[in-house]
């Protein structure tokens, strides 16, 4: 921290000498890094493309299931969870977490989005946390959480990856970064950049945050080196099957969350499995499993106070389609992991899969709102009042009964 402060100070003096308006520049304003108002960690993962909940967590105990999924139902290859649900084989590396009570699922859930089944609108509704688009709400629900809590700083919440995450967009300052981004600039270059961005708030803010974060990460790097090597040696990493962006994102998230960061979010694509689903869904579930295991390994002791919440825009058709895949549907599943989770359970008001039970004759009927589960987690982990959840974070939501997802 001291190093960054010093750089800023030097910058301030020379910047002023150059004649640019130093006082108005966020680049030159010392940022107070308050410690966060709570100690628990929340990681929100967005599964883009609509995860097939009925294949990830298979309700084999429902008499209609096998008939709906003649080629997809995994049968004995799936790991039994509780005598009704079984787990897709690609999630098998997570079974130790299930056994320890650090992994839970909810089923037959959805956002309020219905009928048009567009990925992009579905994801906007999920991340905005609203009942419908076009209501004037333009920020994300995790950002609104940040707006309700005093004492947070930009570092409290991190949007990770190269995309912009609507879930964290909004009035409250949050940090955004992608793990493989670097920025090294001469002091003069920084001064001149500040000058050419000066009249443009969008560019000014993005570049000043970039410089701050890059310096902070460089300053932290010494301390992280030992932890990273610890992590590589951790037995949890043995379950990690793949390398790729998701592992880098998870490692980066874990590194931030070991410090002052309390909330992190990133997304995992690859769930839109219209065709020959077993291949792509297996890969996507493998990615999810890797991500969760990498987070656990990277977080070390902090895992004990962590909840990972995985959400998708909607589920997929109850019947497999004509090409051994599934089309866009409604009800789906959520995945929860972490030491803060009361795991080893699938939480659901199961609607059934018989013809008459399906939504619009084709989809798993949602019986619970994704937002209610997320709301109960925020309430439990951060002490946010129910009224704040139902009015400020998810306007108009009825939280309903406590699903008991937390210890």
């Amino acid at each position, binding site marked *: 921290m001291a190093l960054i402060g010093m750089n800023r100070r030097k910058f301030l003096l020379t910047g002023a000498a150059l004649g640019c308006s130093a006082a108005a520049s966020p680049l030159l304003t010392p940022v107070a890094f308050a410690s966060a108002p709570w100690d628990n960690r929340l990681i929100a993962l967005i599964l*883009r493309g609509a995860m097939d909940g009925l294949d990830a967590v298979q309700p084999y105990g429902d008499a209609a299931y096998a008939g709906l999924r003649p080629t997809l139902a995994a049968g004995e290859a799936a790991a039994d969870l509780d005598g009704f649900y079984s787990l897709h084989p690609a999630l098998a590396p997570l079974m130790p977490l299930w056994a320890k009570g650090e992994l839970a699922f909810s089923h037959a859930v959805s956002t309020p989005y219905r009928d048009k089944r567009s990925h992009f609108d579905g994801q906007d509704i999920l991340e905005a946390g609203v009942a419908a688009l076009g209501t004037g709400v333009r920020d994300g629900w995790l950002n609104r959480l940040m707006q309700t809590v005093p004492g947070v700083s930009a570092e409290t919440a991190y949007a990770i990856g190269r995309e912009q995450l609507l879930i964290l967009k909004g009035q409250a300052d949050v940090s955004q970064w*992608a793990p493989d981004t670097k920025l090294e600039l001469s002091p003069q*270059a920084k001064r001149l950049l500040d000058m*050419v961005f000066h009249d443009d708030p969008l560019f000014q803010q993005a570049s000043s945050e970039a410089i701050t974060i890059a310096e902070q990460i460089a300053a932290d790097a010494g301390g992280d080196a030992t932890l990273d090597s610890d992590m590589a040696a951790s037995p949890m990493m043995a379950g990690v099957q793949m390398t790729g962006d998701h592992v880098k994102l998870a490692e980066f998230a874990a590194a931030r969350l070991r410090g002052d960061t309390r909330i992190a979010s990133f997304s995992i*694509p690859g769930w839109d499995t219209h065709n020959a689903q077993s291949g792509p869904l297996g890969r996507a579930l493998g990615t999810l499993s890797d991500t969760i295991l990498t987070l656990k390994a990277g977080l070390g002791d902090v895992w004990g106070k962590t909840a990972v919440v995985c959400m998708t825009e909607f589920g997929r058709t109850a019947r497999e389609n004509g*090409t051994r895949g599934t089309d866009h549907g409604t009800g789906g599943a959520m995945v929860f992991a972490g030491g803060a989770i009361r795991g080893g359970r699938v939480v659901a008001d199961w609607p059934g899969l018989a013809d008459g039970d399906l939504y619009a004759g084709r989809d798993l009927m949602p019986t619970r709102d994704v937002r209610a589960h997320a709301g109960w987690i925020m309430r439990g982990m951060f002490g946010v009042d129910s009224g704040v959840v139902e009015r400020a974070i998810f306007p108009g939501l009825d939280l309903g009964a406590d699903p008991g997802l937390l210890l």
Partner: protein
Amino acid sequence: MPFDPDLGAIRFGTGLSPAVPPPADAASMLSALAGPDRAAARWPIPVFAQAEPTMPDMAKLAKERRNAEKAGIAEDIAAVQARYVVQRDAARALGLANFGATVARGIGAEDAFRERLTWFWADHFTVRAKQGIIAHLVTPYVEEAIRPHVGGRFADMLKAVVTHPMMLLYLDQSASVGPDSRAARGGRKGLNENLARELLELHTVGVNGPYTQDDVRQMAELLTGLTVDRMDGFAYNPRQAEPGAETVLGVTYSDQSSLETIFAALDDLAVNPATAQFIAGQIAGHFVADEPDPALVAAMAATFSQTGGDLAAVYATMLDHPASWLTEGGKVKQPLRFVVSALRALGVDADEVAGATPQTLRQRLQQPLVLMGQTWEKPVGPDGWAEAAGAWITPQGMAARINWAMSAPGRLVKDLPDPRDLVLTALGPTPPDPVVFAARAAESKVEGVGVILSSAAFQRS
């Protein structure tokens, strides 16, 4: 504000250049678009059927490989494997060459509006290679299904796209089979809604358009029969077609399943009033402003409807409209456009880029685009790249842009221009004072160039 040549080159082209003059007026932009495609002739990209290895080349070798593996003779397996490696390397080399040619066209084009239109429509009809092995065929899809139609009729582009093997594979139409068709074999194969849904939601009437799940389903049934034969390319297979008449958006089509019936539905969709409105909004939202003036969109939509989707007429309306020339608002350049416009402003020789080594193309251009958030030909979904400025000018995106601006020009350009000159070449005769000052105050040429290219003035349009 009327037509301005410099703003015309920046907003509707690939930027100002020391070598290529900006367009004199809207009429010359449109007549260039109607004229011969000089950039395509000079920096060629093969069409789909000639892009080697072609799909049949790959299908043949894959078959030989399977046969060799079945026969189990080690020598034959090794031989076919060696040929496979050669083929894969050739595919990668062509993919990279296609990228180089795309960038070269952007840098060198006299008629840069055509390049921008090609990028826009390729994004509107996004295709991704489902398997890495066919990644080199995405640009050829654009060359064949998109580029010839950018100044033509929307319906023609729509039909070219919807019958193209790359789109049929990408959105799974090739595998979709009418549930009561002969190919369904008693229900063992069936329908896939993917293309039908995106056709309505993304390609024509838009997500707020007047369609329901029933329309998606009917459209999916109507599209059955469109498929891909790995040896022959696009095919219409009547055995896959769902029998009977389908009704989409209130129109019932012939109960005779045929390509003509599908084209009839596409022709109707192409001129639906909701399509006119949606496409007008997409074009204005890409070229003029993230949230374009509704009057501009309405005028463009009216032209679209009056002309039955004549795209050149729609562009003419855009270029004539005062709202298209406001300097407030505007757009942020997406990464490919940012990089191309920077190289163009620096006076980089387009032929050198087209002939650059694979390593140069990867390290200096493709990798930086990844970090800026725009991996070449790999948008996340069929909705393509984001339009909103805020999606690109994030801390991580900005860091990647600044890094590239500060480092790549010095490595790519032998004689960097004097920053005091570049500020005028890149930004036109009236650049903002702070950028002029910064160009003068930089400690080195490299840094001066970097600051100019990083500036909001250069990255906005």
